[in-house]
């Protein structure tokens, strides 16, 4: 029941993210407004973004670089992100996210990554391609176990600027979550992929 509800919820969020800018564009065309000039962001400009999408478990890696199955289902992931422009092509900030996925016996894996993030931005108005790297901690909970991992999140986004304030697009983010164990051969690196839709607000 929970799985079905979460799946429907994620699907609804994704559909809304896709349809919202299209509907807004239709409205703009109908009103015949003139196109805005390309925005120029500078030091002090900030962004807030919300991201929601799929969490794809890839594989676990031992510290001897042997790969193994995660046995996890495809799950859901989402995040909130605040960033500030250092200059027109670099912004830095912080991201708080979350994910869930299910094990073969129906147990839920939960993660809460909190990362410092930097994005290098390639722009060709109205499109923007930020290349990002997040570094931080990942609070992981599974049944009665909780751990804090070191996480690296490299990623790339494709954004379309609807106007000077709003951009919409797609993120592809790799999760590299390093988990250590006091038993030497039981440490694992989690390799996951987040595919999410993004709504980004400039202010």
């Amino acid at each position, binding site marked *: 029941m929970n799985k079905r509800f979460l799946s429907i919820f994620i699907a609804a969020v994704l559909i809304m993210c896709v349809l919202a800018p299209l509907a807004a564009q239709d409205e703009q065309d109908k009103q015949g407004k003139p196109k805005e000039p390309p925005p120029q962001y500078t030091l002090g400009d900030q962004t807030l973004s919300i991201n929601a999408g799929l969490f794809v478990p890839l594989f676990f890696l031992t510290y001897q670089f042997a790969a193994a199955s995660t046995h996890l289902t495809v799950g859901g992931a989402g995040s909130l992100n605040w960033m500030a422009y250092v200059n027109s092509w670099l912004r830095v900030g912080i991201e708080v996210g979350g994910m869930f996925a299910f094990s073969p*016996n129906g147990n839920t894996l939960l993660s809460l990554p909190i990362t410092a993030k930097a994005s290098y931005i390639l722009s060709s108005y109205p499109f923007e391609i930020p290349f990002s790297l997040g570094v931080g901690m990942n609070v992981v909970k599974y*049944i009665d176990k909780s*751990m804090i*991992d070191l996480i690296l999140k490299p990623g790339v986004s494709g954004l379309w600027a609807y106007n000077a304030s709003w951009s919409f697009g797609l993120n592809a983010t790799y999760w590299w979550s*390093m988990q*250590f164990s006091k038993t030497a051969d039981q440490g694992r690196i989690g390799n996951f992929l987040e595919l999410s839709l993004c709504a980004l607000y400039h202010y």
Partner: protein
Amino acid sequence: MKARIAIVLLVMISFLSGCPEGGIYYTLEKETPTTDNTLKNGIPIHGVAKLVPAYYVAAGSVWKGTLTPAPVAWDTSTPITPPVDGALCTALVAFDPGPGLDLYGGFITQSGNVGLYKAAGPSPTTFVGGQITDPLVVDKQVALLEVLNGGAELVISTVSPGDPFSYGLVLFDGTTYSTLFPDTATKPFTGVAFTSTPGTYWAVSGTSLYSGAAGALVVEPRLTKSATEEVLTSVFSDNGTRLFVTSNLGYVYYSADEGATWTPNASAMKVSDTVVSFLTVAGGPNQSKMLVGSDGYGYYVLDTAVTPPTLARFADSTIGLYTASISRFLIDENRLFACTLKGLWRTESFDATDCSVESWIQE
């Protein structure tokens, strides 16, 4: 510089949070799906009994599982016919009053008590017409059925109607029903056991442990509990000499000398500061390690080879049994059943010497 310090701190935190029994990803990597057979999982299991070549389980109705060909296969289309339509089985055992094993079950309906019924073996199909009409049990609800004294006696924990209810024990030796404890207890009897010299019955009801000859059970003074309000939940004897008493405050009291002296585990068993309530004990005769079922924390292995005895929780946290409430076990050679509030679990690889298992199946 500050970024480097932050990363070093993160790495240190990650190391410090490492689980000694293996990390979460390691646990996931090793997790295998539990086999789930055809019995419904959401139903409390009130007993499982064996009449060769089949098992019978009280899961709402009483269902039959065949032993051959292995593995156990449950006929979930046709239950053993209950005494009245819609009756639910609250207790189930196999007992031999001569000349062979029969099924005994206590039944209730939504409108009230139905009573104690027998389904004649060796291959019972119905409880209809099998009501036990002895005056000691006929109008009483059955809270517990237990076979004692090497299979020679059946004990029935009864609930008598009234306001308030009263509780007692009835003994059946295959021929005659007699009073083991009169209907005067204010709490239900949740466990009963027998030790052989000189023939002593043990029973727990609420906060009290009773012992004595049939019809003359008195509060046992030699057991010192951790607190006066401690509820005793079960009593078990594996060989007619050793005794185990479980409590709701995280203790298992162990006696190797028929109740003369008792040794509990060193301190109340807790999980994340929550005291574990234990419900039942089972195990092979004279084994140093015994199974202890708990309310919501699966089962523990009690090691009596050390003093005081130690308890170790079943370690596989990835299956539902880890957080199950286990009210009864049935051990049949290397086959072990666990009756839980949410279905029946079975393993085909139980080793009574160390209580080890290889894998659990949800029936």
